[in-house]
C-alpha cells in the first residue's frame, strides 16, 4: 500500500489507513522529535499528538501530495512547541555552537572504528545539548531530514537568508577547522 492509498482509506473512515502511516513513519518521527527535544517521553508524546492531528484533519489533506514531508514538518514544529513550553528560551552562541556540532558530525561520518564511532556518538549528543531548540531543529532538518533551506525557513518561521547565513558560515569555518582537527589525529 502507498501513502496516498492509506490516506484515501483513512478519509473513508478506515482506521487501517492510519495504522499503516504510523507503522511506516513512527520511528523516524520519534527520532526527529528526540533529536530536537532530547526527551524520549516528550518525543513520543509529540509524535502521538501529530498523528492524532493527522487523523482529525485528514479530510483536508490532498492525497496526491507527499505525506512524509508534511508529517516531518509537523513533528519539527510540535517538538519545538513542546520544548519551548519547558525551556527558558535562552539562545546560546548562534554560530560557534553549530560549527562545533557540525565538525563532530563530519568526524563521526568519517570514522570507521566502532569504538571510536561510539565515542563520537556520545560527543554528538553532548554537543546537541549545547544548542538551542531552534538550532537543533536547523541541524535535524538539514542533516537528518535532508530538507532544503527554503523548507527549513518556512518551518522555523525565519527568513530564508537567516537559515542560509547560519549554515554557510558554519560550513566555511568547518572546512578550515576540519583540516586542523584531522591533522592532529
Amino acid at each position: 500500500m502507498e501513502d496516498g492509498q492509506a490516506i484515501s482509506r483513512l478519509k473513508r473512515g478506515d482506521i487501517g489507513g492510519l495504522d499503516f502511516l504510523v507503522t511506516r513513519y513512527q520511528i523516524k518521527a520519534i527520532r526527529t522529535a528526540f533529536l530536537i527535544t532530547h526527551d524520549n517521553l516528550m518525543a513520543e508524546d509529540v509524535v502521538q499528538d501529530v498523528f492524532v492531528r493527522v487523523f482529525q484533519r485528514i479530510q483536508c489533506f490532498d492525497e496526491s501530495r507527499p505525506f512524509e514531508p508534511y508529517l516531518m514538518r509537523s513533528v519539527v514544529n510540535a517538538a519545538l512547541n513542546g520544548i519551548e513550553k519547558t525551556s527558558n528560551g535562552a539562545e546560546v552562541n548562534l554560530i560557534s555552537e553549530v560549527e562545533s556540532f557540525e565538525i563532530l558530525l563530519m568526524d563521526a561520518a568519517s570514522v570507521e572504528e566502532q569504538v571510536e564511532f561510539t565515542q563520537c556518538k556520545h560527543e554528538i549528543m553532548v554537543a546537541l545539548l549545547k544548542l538551542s531548540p531552534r538550532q537543533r531543529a536547523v541541524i535535524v532538518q538539514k542533516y537528518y531530514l535532508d530538507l532544503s533551506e527554503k523548507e527549513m525557513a518556512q518551518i522555523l518561521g525565519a527568513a530564508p537568508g537567516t537559515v542560509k547565513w547560519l549554515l554557510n558560515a558554519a560550513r566555511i569555518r568547518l572546512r578550515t577547522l576540519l583540516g586542523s582537527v584531522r591533522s592532529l589525529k
Partner: protein
Amino acid sequence: MNMKNVSHVLDMVARDYVPDNINLQPAIAAKIEKGKGTTMQPGKQAIVNKKVFAIGTLMIIAIAMIWMVPWFLERGNIFSIREVTPQSKGTKNVSVASWVSQAITVDQLMAEADLVVKARVSEAPKTRVVRHKFPIMDEKGTEIGSKVDELAFSDTVFEVTETYSGKSAAKITVMQTGGSLPESPNSKSEMSDDPLYNVGEEYILFLVDISGDPVQAPGGGELYRIVNPSGRYRIDGKNVSSYAENVDSVQLPATLGELEAQIKKYTQR
C-alpha cells in the same frame, strides 16, 4: 559533504535512545478515542463533523437574516454611502474575522469561485461606509430607539491579465471589509488575513460574484470578493503565497506554475 552518511550518523545517535521496536499505535488509538468521547468510527465522526458544520452554517445564515430584517423593512433609507481613499500613513487597526467558506485547496476554491483570474491592482482601494440603522428594543420587545452602525468596505479595481475560470471584463472591482472612515482618514482598518490591496500588486484571485448583494454591494454594479483568504494568492516573480492563516495540514502551491497547473487540471475535468 556526504549527506547520507551524516543522516545515518544522526540516526545511529538517536537509535541509542529510540529503539526500532517502539509502537505508538495503541497510544494514538487511545488518544483518538479519548478525544471523541465515544467509540464511534472515524467515518461516523466525519459525518458528525459535517452535521455540526451544517448546523453552524445555518445558524450563521439565520443570524444574518435576522440582522437583515430591518433592511427589508426600511429599504431605501438605512444605507448611505460615502467614499474616501484610504491613507497609506497613519494608524492601522487590524481585525480578525471568521469566514463562512472553509475552502483551502485549489480544488475546493475552484468549486466555490465564480471567477478565477490573474490580475494586477490598477487603482487604490476606495472606501465606502455603509450605515446600517437597527432598532433598540426593551425587554418586552418594544422599540425604544435606534442605533446606526457603520461598516467600512473598500473596492479595488484590478486589471485582469488572464482568466482561468468564468467570464471576466478587462477590469474588475473586488470588495474587501475595512478601509478608512471619513471621520478619521489617517486611520485604516483592515482584516488580518485580507489586508487592503496596494497598487501594482499582482494576484491570482478566486472570486465570488456579489453583484447586487444588499449589504456588500448596495450601490449596484459588478462586484466581487475573494472566496476566503485561501483564495488570494500574491504573485512574487515565479513564487506565489496564499493569505490563508494557520494552514499546516495541506501543502499549498508555492510557485505560479504549480498553482496554474492545479487550476488548469481542475478546469479540464
